[in-house]
C-alpha cells in the first residue's frame, strides 16, 4: 500500500515537474538521470539479487537503441511500439546469453557479457543500413500534444519507464522468484539441493533485466536525433549500471534508485563544470571505496545508523 502511494507521489511529481519547469536543459539532463535509474534497477535484478555481475549493459541498451532506430528508419514506427520492440529484442538477447553462459560460474558470465558488447558493436559497425561506423541521422517527428517539446516528452516517457522498472524490480524482490534469486546468491549449491530451479530463475532474471535495459535504450536515437556505434555501445553505461546499485545498496529495490539519482546527477554536474574524464574517475573511485568499505551501500549505512541510534536510545532509558 505504502509503495503504491509512493508510486502515485512519484508520478505526480513527474507531472508537476514537467508542467512547471521552463528550462529545456533540465529535461535534457533529467532524462539521463532517469535513464540511469532504469539501467541500475534492471542491472540489480540479476546482479544484486542473484549475484551475477553483468558488464553487458551497453549490449542490451545498444541493441534496444538500434532496434528503435532501424524500425523508425524503415517504417516511422511510433515511439511506444519502438520501445516494445526494443524490449523484446533485448529480452531475446538476454535469453540467448543466459542459456549459453548462466550454467557457468559468475566470473564466466561476467566475461561473456563483455564479449556481447564487442560483438554487438562490431555487427552494427558493419551493418550499412543502420549507418555503419559513421552513424545514422534521424529526423524527429513533431511532439505529441500536450507536450510542446520533444525532449520534455522523452523525459516524461523515461520517468514512466523508471517507475515501471522499479515496480517490476520490487515485485520480483518480494515474490518467490526474488527469494530464489537470493538463495542462489548466498549459495548456489544449497539452493539447487533444496529444489530451487536455479538455471530457470537466473535466465528469467537475465531476460527481464535485459528487456528493461533495451527499453531504456529505445528513446536514445530520438533523444540525440542521431545514433552511432561507438557511443551507443560505450562501456560507461556498464559502469553506471553497475556502480549505482553497488553504491546505493543491492539488497533493496531503493538502492539502485538512490545510487543512480546520486551518481547520475553528480556526473551531470561534473561533466558540465569540470570534465568528462574526471567524472569517470570519480565513479571508479567511489565504486572501489564503497565495495571495500560499505558493501551494503548507502542503504546499509543508513540501517546501521538507525540501529545504533535505537540502541543508544534504549540505553538512555
Amino acid at each position, binding site marked *: 500500500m505504502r509503495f503504491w502511494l509512493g508510486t502515485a507521489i512519484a508520478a505526480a511529481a513527474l507531472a508537476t515537474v514537467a508542467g512547471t519547469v521552463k528550462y529545456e536543459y533540465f529535461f535534457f539532463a533529467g532524462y539521463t538521470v532517469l535513464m540511469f535509474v532504469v539501467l541500475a534497477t534492471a542491472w540489480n535484478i540479476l546482479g544484486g539479487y542473484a549475484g551475477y555481475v553483468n558488464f553487458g549493459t551497453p549490449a542490451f541498451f545498444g541493441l534496444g537503441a538500434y532496434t528503435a532506430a532501424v524500425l523508425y528508419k524503415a517504417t516511422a514506427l511510433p515511439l511506444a511500439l519502438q520501445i516494445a520492440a526494443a524490449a523484446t529484442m533485448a529480452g531475446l538477447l538476454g535469453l540467448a546469453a543466459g542459456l549459453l553462459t548462466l550454467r*557457468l560460474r559468475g566470473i564466466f558470465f561476467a566475461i561473456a557479457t563483455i564479449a556481447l558488447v564487442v560483438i554487438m558493436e562490431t555487427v552494427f559497425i558493419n551493418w550499412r543500413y543502420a549507418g555503419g*561506423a559513421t552513424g545514422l541521422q534521424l529526423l524527429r517527428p513533431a511532439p505529441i500534444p500536450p507536450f510542446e517539446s520533444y525532449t520534455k516528452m522523452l523525459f516524461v516517457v523515461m520517468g514512466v519507464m523508471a517507475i515501471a522498472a522499479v515496480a517490476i524490480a520490487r515485485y520480483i524482490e518480494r515474490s518467490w522468484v526474488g527469494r530464489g534469486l537470493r538463495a542462489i546468491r548466498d549459495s548456489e549449491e544449497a539452493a539447487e539441493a533444496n529444489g530451487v530451479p536455479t538455471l530457470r530463475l537466473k535466465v528469467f532474471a537475465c531476460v527481464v533485466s535485459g528487456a528493461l535495459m533495451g527499453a531504456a535504450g529505445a528513446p536514445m536515437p530520438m533523444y540525440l536525433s542521431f545514433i552511432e556505434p561507438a557511443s551507443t555501445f560505450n*562501456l560507461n553505461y556498464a559502469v553506471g549500471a*553497475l556502480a549505482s546499485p*553497488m553504491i546505493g545498496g543491492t539488497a533493496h529495490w531503493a538502492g539502485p534508485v538512490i545510487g543512480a539519482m546520486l551518481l547520475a546527477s553528480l556526473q551531470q554536474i561534473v561533466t558540465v563544470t569540470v570534465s568528462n574524464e574526471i567524472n569517470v574517475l570519480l565513479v571508479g*573511485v567511489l*565504486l*572501489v571505496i564503497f*565495495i571495500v568499505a560499505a558493501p551494503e551501500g548507502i542503504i546499509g549505512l543508513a540501517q546501521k545508523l538507525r540501529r545504533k541510534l535505537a540502541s543508544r536510545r534504549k540505553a538512555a532509558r
Partner: protein
Amino acid sequence: MGMFWELLPEAILFGILLGGFYAAVSMGLSVSFGLLDVPNVAHPAIMVFGSYCTYLLAQQGLDPIVAGVLLMPPFFLLGMAVYRFYYEAFERRGAEAGVRGIAFFFGVALIIEVGLILAFGVDQRMVEAAYVGVAASVGEIRIPLRMLVAFGVAVVLTVALTLYMSRTFTGRAIKAVAQDEPALRLMGADPVRIKQWAFGIATGVSALAGAMLIIVGPVEPALDRVYIGRTFAVVVLAGLGSMTGTVAAGLILGISESIVLMQFGASWAPAVSFALLLAVLGFRPQGLFGR
C-alpha cells in the same frame, strides 16, 4: 576464392606470430585467473599501464625490451600489494566475494584507464627502436621485424614460466595451491603467502607484456578493453592455468584473427576473440587442456 588460397600462407604465418604474442600477453592472466581464481579483469589495464611506463623509459633512450625487464620487479611488488589488499578486503570475508571481487577489479581497471587519459591524453603513443618499422623478407612474404621480436620474447617468457612452474619449489607450491588449497593448509604451508607471490609474478610478467604491446603497435589508454576479450579468450580456451594450453590457444586465436582480417577486413577482427570466447564458454567450458 583463388585470392584466398594465395594469401592464406601469409595470413597463417602472420597469425602464428600474432598468436605467440597473444599467448605472452595472456601468461599473467593464466596464472592470476587460471591458477589462483582471482577474477582479475584489471589484467589488461595493468598491462597497458606497463606499456606507458615503457614509453616513459624509452623516451630516456632505453631499449623498450630492456625497459620491460627493468619494470618487472616494481610490477612484482605492485602485484603483491594488490593481492594483499584483495585478500584482506574480499577473500578473507568469504561469502559474496564473487560479485564484489569482480566489481573491485573492474573499478581498478577504470581508475588506471582514466588515470592514463589524464596523464597522457587519448592520443596514441609508440616507441622507437632499431627493429620498429623494419621488415624481414622470407621468400615473397614480408614480416615486420617488431612482430618477430615480440614473438621471440614471448617464446622465452613462456619457456621460462613453464620451467619455473614445474621445476622450482615455489612454482610447484603455486600449482599445489591451485589444486588443493585446504590440503596445503593442513601440511602447514601458508597458501596466502604463496598466492601473493604468484600474483606478484603474474603482474611482473604483465610489465614485460606491456612492453611488447607498445613494440607491436601504438598504444592508447582504452586499449585494455579489446585485450580483456583476447586474454580471457586465450586463458579460457587453454583450460584454466595450463601453460602449454595458453600457447596453443594463443596460436588458435592469432591465426583465426589473421584469417578474418585478411578475408573480411579490420572492422571484424575485434569480434573474433569474443566470438571464440562465447563459443568455448557455451560448448566446451573446461577448455582444450582443462584440468
